[in-house]
């Protein structure tokens, strides 16, 4: 697999603040690459440098082997971008917007195909001002795809959307992933990174503090999984506390949380104790650690502040 986007030692300062601090990464063809981090971590600055909107203080960027800092005009034909805030003329219709953007590029995808891809066919004659937040975001996605880009940049594609609209944007992105699009996605939602990305770079204070597949990041952090029992009978609660289980127990109101690395052994023990005393385990669930927990473990802070 060849690298579509390659970034080396990228640095950007604003006065005394180092927004991006010497980061390097490369994105392979057909990969969905996530940049995850809290607000102000430098995610947007990083992608905006690759897109040509900002100039770095030092470092190298190449897209499809072309030096993006020397030849930004050539890069524009090759990439598609969805900015964080949707921004379009209110007085044009959906179809007109897609046609308009198509006219700016040498290579274009037919408007009908694009609208189908983002499920906006029935809105083709609506004015941009009449669209909901999720629809505007999907239109922005269609505009980013208008030149069939070699690399697609999505900056916080679902920030500010309600859960249902978020799901629908995720569905569209998953569809693009299936078609083999190379996508670079920034987000501060760990579910988003976990759901969509093949590899994730975790960014904090301008640096990449970890980079791997979501699974490997979680495993590598050596974090415990969590067994959760909702409202256990009093008897079970005290039995579990007395038993010698390979777990650390915490209680969160009515819930009992058992943290462990040995999930199956712990589960076996718990069911055995419950069976012996004829107690029915009504509500028990196991949760793997998330990228959120990884970030917390590495920085001591929450992703969302």
């Amino acid at each position, binding site marked *: 697999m060849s690298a579509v986007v390659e970034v080396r030692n990228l640095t950007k300062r604003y006065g005394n603040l180092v927004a991006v601090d010497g980061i390097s990464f490369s994105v392979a063809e057909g990969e969905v690459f996530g940049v995850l981090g809290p607000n102000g971590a430098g995610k947007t600055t990083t992608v905006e440098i690759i897109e040509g909107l900002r100039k770095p203080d030092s470092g190298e960027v190449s897209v499809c082997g072309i030096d993006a800092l020397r030849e930004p005009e050539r890069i524009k034909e090759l990439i598609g971008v969805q900015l964080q805030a949707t*921004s379009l*003329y209110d007085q044009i219709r959906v179809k007109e917007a897609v046609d308009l*953007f198509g*006219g700016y590029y040498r290579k274009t995808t037919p408007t009908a195909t694009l609208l189908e891809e983002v499920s906006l066919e029935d809105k083709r004659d609506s004015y941009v001002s009449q669209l909901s937040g999720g629809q505007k975001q999907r239109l922005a996605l269609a505009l980013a795809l208008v030149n069939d880009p070699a690399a697609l940049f999505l900056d916080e594609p679902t920030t500010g959307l309600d859960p249902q609209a978020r799901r629908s944007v995720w569905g569209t992105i998953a569809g693009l992933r299936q078609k083999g699009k190379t996508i670079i996605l920034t987000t501060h939602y760990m579910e988003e990174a976990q759901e969509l990305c093949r590899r994730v770079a975790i960014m904090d204070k301008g640096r990449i503090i970890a980079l791997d597949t979501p699974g490997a990041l979680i495993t590598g952090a050596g974090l415990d999984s969590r067994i959760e029992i909702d409202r256990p009978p009093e008897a079970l609660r005290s039995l579990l506390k007395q038993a010698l289980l390979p777990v650390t127990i915490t209680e969160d109101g009515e819930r009992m949380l058992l943290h462990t690395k040995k999930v199956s052994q712990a589960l076996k023990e718990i069911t055995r104790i419950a069976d012996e005393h004829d107690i029915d385990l009504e509500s028990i669930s196991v949760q793997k650690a998330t990228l959120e927990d990884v970030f917390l473990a590495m920085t001591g802070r929450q992703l969302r502040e």
Partner: protein
Amino acid sequence: MLLRQVRLETRLFLRRKDDLFWTLAFPLFFIVLFGMIYQDMLWEDLGLRAIEYILPGIIVMALMTSGIMATASGFAEEREKGIYRRLALTPLKRHTLLGGQLIQRYIVILVQTILLLIVGSLAFSIRIEGNLFWAWMVVTLGALCFLSIGFLLTGLIKTARAANGISMVVFFMLMFLGGIFFPTQMMPDFLRSFSNALPSTNLNDVLRAVMITDLGVGNVWRELLVVGGWFAGSLALAVRLFRWE
């Protein structure tokens, strides 16, 4: 590319009700209003019918609604919404974008002028004794001057809200002090000398001289110079202060 941008800007213009009101309905309303108020009234010391005095003034006013108000508030709004930022990511060149806007504004200005001339001569039988070619040249200079002032305002003002309000204040000041509805001779001395320095007052005098009367450009070269000075000064500042973001 440029043609596509002109078409886009024209389409946007036709769909913006506030732009249509200020640039087309508002000046037409005034010419009809004053036409009906003044009817056949003569302004003796000027040797003109009052409505003949007013018509070039209304054309100047129309140039200002397009050049200053619509331009300043429209550009600031699109900039604030991040439209220019989004377009910067496409291969569209910024001078093409700007060129499309300027050409579209100029077309609207010519349409405004022609409409006002037609209404003025048909409804109120205003005689146009001057030279239409020179009138066109003067309107073009006025368009350039006010567009420069409009873009200068967008360079000075950050937010769309402020650009909207301030451009309106500038417009009304240039209109009321610009000898548009009444001759500057009627003003007190201190106001009059201020008024005589404004681009609207001078453009108004030049346009009246070359369009309504047959005085010709040679007799109003001083006024022409003032308008030219405003154009050059505003353009230089506008270019220096111009910002896309």
